């Protein structure tokens, strides 16, 4: 048996013993031993002036920059939010934070006055796959759904407010719609499972960029020639003239 294998088994045995002894009075020992241990890592604080729809992207951008900065990990983050006003972006901001494995603790605190420090600015480079992960169940569902809908064809995830006319017959256009009922993690997983992204520069646009997917980020409806050029650049020129394939919303 190699030394590494032996050490691995020893560590596993130790974990199992500790788990088995997780009852009183051993919990007191856990408490004291843990409290005596030193912990490394980095603590970072940021503040948002409003906790509405823009908060998830800003949180994603903040953590992506932190993750790319080479700051010692794990990271403890504190996000200060205004006590009054809208807070509907908070759950999605928490979802975004949970995708970063390097984050050891997340603290939200509410104050009467906060000065905003968060911005939308993403790092220029995409992140390594292990740095930024959506839950495995969401990944699995996304991969399975796209496989069932598109088979082996390349999938373009479309996230626009207006209906989008699919431009190419050799590609599959998956159009996100609220009626699909996806959570943020599920939507992020779909972006990561797709081959390219066309849509808003929001949390999903950020996910495409951080995951290294080709992305056409737009604020309204993209022009036909803009889309054609984007697709030609990343998937080559169209090969056939069969009708384009595209998802329709379940509510339609």
């Amino acid at each position, binding site marked *: 048996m190699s030394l590494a294998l032996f050490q691995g088994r020893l560590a596993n045995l130790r974990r199992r013993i500790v788990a088995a002894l997780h009852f009183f009075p051993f919990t007191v020992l856990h408490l004291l031993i843990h409290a005596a241990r030193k912990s490394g890592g980095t603590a970072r604080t940021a503040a948002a002036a409003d906790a509405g729809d823009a908060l998830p992207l800003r949180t994603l951008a903040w953590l992506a920059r932190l993750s790319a900065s080479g700051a010692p990990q794990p990271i403890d983050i504190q996000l200060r939010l205004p006590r009054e006003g809208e807070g509907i972006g908070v759950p999605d901001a928490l979802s975004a934070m949970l995708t970063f494995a390097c984050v050891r603790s997340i603290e939200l605190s509410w104050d009467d006055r906060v000065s905003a420090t968060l911005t939308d600015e993403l790092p220029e480079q995409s992140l390594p796959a292990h740095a930024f992960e959506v839950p*495995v169940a969401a990944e699995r569902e996304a991969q399975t759904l796209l496989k069932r809908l598109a088979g082996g064809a390349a999938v373009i995830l479309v996230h626009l407010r207006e209906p989008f006319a699919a431009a190419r017959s050799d590609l599959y256009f998956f159009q996100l719609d609220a009626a699909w009922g996806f959570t943020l993690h599920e939507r992020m997983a779909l972006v990561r499972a797709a081959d390219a992204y066309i849509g808003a520069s929001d949390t999903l646009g950020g996910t495409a960029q951080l995951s290294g997917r080709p992305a056409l980020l737009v604020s309204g409806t993209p022009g036909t020639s803009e889309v054609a050029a984007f697709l030609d650049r990343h998937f080559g020129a169209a090969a056939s003239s069969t009708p384009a394939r595209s998802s329709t919303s379940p509510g339609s």
Partner: protein
Amino acid sequence: MAGAPLLGVYDFSYAPYALGDALTWTMNLNVAAEEAGCDAIDQVLVIDPERPGNRYQAFVNPHTYTGIIDALLPAFLCSPKLRSLRLLRDAPTFNRLLLGAAARRRPMWPSLLRHLVRRLDFISHRRINAHHRERGSLPWLTAPRGFATWAREFRRWHCAGRFVVAVNIRQGALGHAPANLFRDSPLSEWCAFLRQAEVRFPDVVFLVLGAYQELSRELWRLPNVLAPRAMGLGLGHELALVHEADLFMGSSSGFAAMATFCNKPYAITNVQHQWSRHIGVPVGGRHFPFGGANQVLSWERESASRLLGLLEELRALLPS
């Protein structure tokens, strides 16, 4: 002068990932804070990523826990005294925090001893009932922080001028982790009820709440039904809608706990007999000890006629 903020601890190594339990815990925190004279609460949720599960939920493991906690987090935003919410994914960091709080004799719930013996009373209403008995009032939950205005706007936009009933039909069999399926409600009876209600109560709109997987297509296509999850909304929105609705009707489950603890008019159906000892109500009792005339418990399995009867009874007690 108000005391130091109360420290509330929810350790997922012995407390379940469940909506009703999270809300009951929050209600207990409110009660504990009021009794300790604290005007603010700091909530700490603890998960050990290597062993994130507990003995009740074997399906929670290092690969699944992020999705599961993500689906539950808005439930921890419902205390009006909430000052901070911390999610810790590291047992040593949590234990240092805990020891520091104990050294400063900071008020906390559960107590340090209760935490160390891993006995959190996350189900029963014992403390809540006692508080109500002593003081005649309770510190209720609110809509999740920052969602109240949104819920009012939603109502104005989608339900203008109508009587709004929030509905939850427990369909655990369709969920990600089926458990305790004997608590599920009969969907066909609810569908029949909603079809009949469309004729008998044309001014009523029903908001069907719950996970997207549990949403029935038959319900979705009814003209008097709105399904927030099929509109791209999440748990935070749904809890705010329970708070904003005129009435809640639904199975004894997580959303029923929200209606109970934010003091809405409600009809909670299919209450399990074994739950009687936890809530301090004898089997067949119509109200919680702190419940009013328009807050009704039904211990029977639902039928369309029974549901119509409940709606009729409560509609008559409530202003249009």
